[in-house]
């Protein structure tokens, strides 16, 4: 959805015709070549950044321009810095064949209302004060960002993710393979998926959340919206959920081999005399929200706070 948004706005023929290559700089093989580029930008435009290794720091500011500083790594071909309509592109170009390329450090300032899309392989990524939508991807680099009310999507393989929300409602999506993810003060809709990483989520008032893990633990602290729908699932990881009072929800918890503990009172029961599964179904308060937790081997701990 965010990708389409970027493509649609940037893809009109007029804008493409008016595309201006602002700079194509830095000859190859200059060690630690300083970067200092700046260009006017739409206050609510899109900025795409791509860097294989090194680091990327993106900060929102109150100027209608994009500034790129930093240092181009040894062996890098060049930095592409261009604008096409509302889209500003910052891309570190790697040579076709190279045995040794140093990482590039990028410090990018964008209009605070910009939407950003950042792709890295091993470069760490740090985003601050950006109010627009964010799509952040890294294979092994760590991602750290703050989110306001716009959508955020973070994806990594082995990199860790840290998201600090503002308590405003937004759509937050985090996917990792082995990386851990820690989300604080996120609210609205929160989705996460990992294989072996741990997901730790501290939610403000949450209306929708779907968190899944294979072997990583899911740890959730949150406040339920009146009509909230939470759906947590794990294979062998534990699921620990603490909900702020007052809690008004219907709970549906099942585990095939794991233990279920519940601070709200009702005890789990065996699903079958001959099978190992247990389940816990109960209503707390008026029961407007729904909380569903399923595990295979993982334990479930359900508590109020």
């Amino acid at each position: 959805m965010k990708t389409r948004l970027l493509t649609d706005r940037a893809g009109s023929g007029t804008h493409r015709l008016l595309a201006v290559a602002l700079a194509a700089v830095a000859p190859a093989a200059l060690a630690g070549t300083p970067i200092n580029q700046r260009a006017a930008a739409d206050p609510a435009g899109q900025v795409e950044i791509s860097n294989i290794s090194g680091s990327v720091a993106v900060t929102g500011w109150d100027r209608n321009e994009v500034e790129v500083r930093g240092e181009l790594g040894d062996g890098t071909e060049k930095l592409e810095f261009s604008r096409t309509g509302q889209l500003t592109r910052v891309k570190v170009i790697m040579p076709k064949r190279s045995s040794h390329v140093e990482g590039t450090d990028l410090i990018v300032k964008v209009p605070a209302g910009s939407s950003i899309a950042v792709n890295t392989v091993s470069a760490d990524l740090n985003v601050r004060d950006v109010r627009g939508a964010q799509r952040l991807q890294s294979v092994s680099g760590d991602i750290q960002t703050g989110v306001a009310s716009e959508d955020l999507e973070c994806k990594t393989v082995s990199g860790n993710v840290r998201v600090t929300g503002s308590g405003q409602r937004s759509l937050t999506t985090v996917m990792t393979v082995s990386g851990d993810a820690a989300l604080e003060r996120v609210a609205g809709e929160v989705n996460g998926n990992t294989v072996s990483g741990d997901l730790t989520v501290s939610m403000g008032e949450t209306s929708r959340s779907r968190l899944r893990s294979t072997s990583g633990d899911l740890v959730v602290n949150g406040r339920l919206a009146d009509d909230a729908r939470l759906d947590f699932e794990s294979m062998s990881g534990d699921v620990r959920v603490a909900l702020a009072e007052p809690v008004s929800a219907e709970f549906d918890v099942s585990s095939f081999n794991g233990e279920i503990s519940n601070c709200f009172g009702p005890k789990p029961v065996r699903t079958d005399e001959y099978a190992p599964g247990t389940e816990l179904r109960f209503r707390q308060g008026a029961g407007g929200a729904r909380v569903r937790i399923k595990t295979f081997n993982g334990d479930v701990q359900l508590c109020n706070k």
Partner: protein
Amino acid sequence: MNQGPADRPDRLQEALSQLPRGIEPGRDLWPGIAARLEPRSEPARVRAVPRWAWAAAAATVLVVASSIVTATLMRREAAMTARTAPTAQSAPEVVQAVAGSATAAFGPGHRVGPAYLANRRVLARELEVRLARLPPEGREQLAKNIAELRRASAEINAALELHPGDPLLEELLFNIYQDEISVLANVDRLTAADTKTAPTRIPL
């Protein structure tokens, strides 16, 4: 004086009616009966073992096989890393572990649809080129975590052998297969130079 034959039925009936209708044994016979019944129940348990054993054996074979593949790959990765910078040559080996030729079961007697397996193979082929761009630890992590997903699906399949039709197990297994495709698709995207659409949800 002898009684005539005509008298005998009445007297016999009378004598029979005097007999008690039941006779209480002089001691409690049940412990003895139970002791003799106990060995008969053993064969029933023994009969149940092969089914469990087959399921466990199948799961063990899957886990051991995936562990061997992972361990082999990790040893090769370590050797290559020590020797030189990462090269594209290791990508096919990781793809072999990632995509594999393993069939995907869905409980006893069911196989996951051919569309799923075909899409998994397509994703794996596309990955082969892009995996070369991953750092060695990235490839290692990917192989380990795909093995983790495979182990989880093998465990649930083994449980489904014992408890066919269990809705919780079926739901978890369905989702684990989707997760595997989702992981492959996401890695495909993360390592792609340009963002192309790859399927993330495949019909089973």
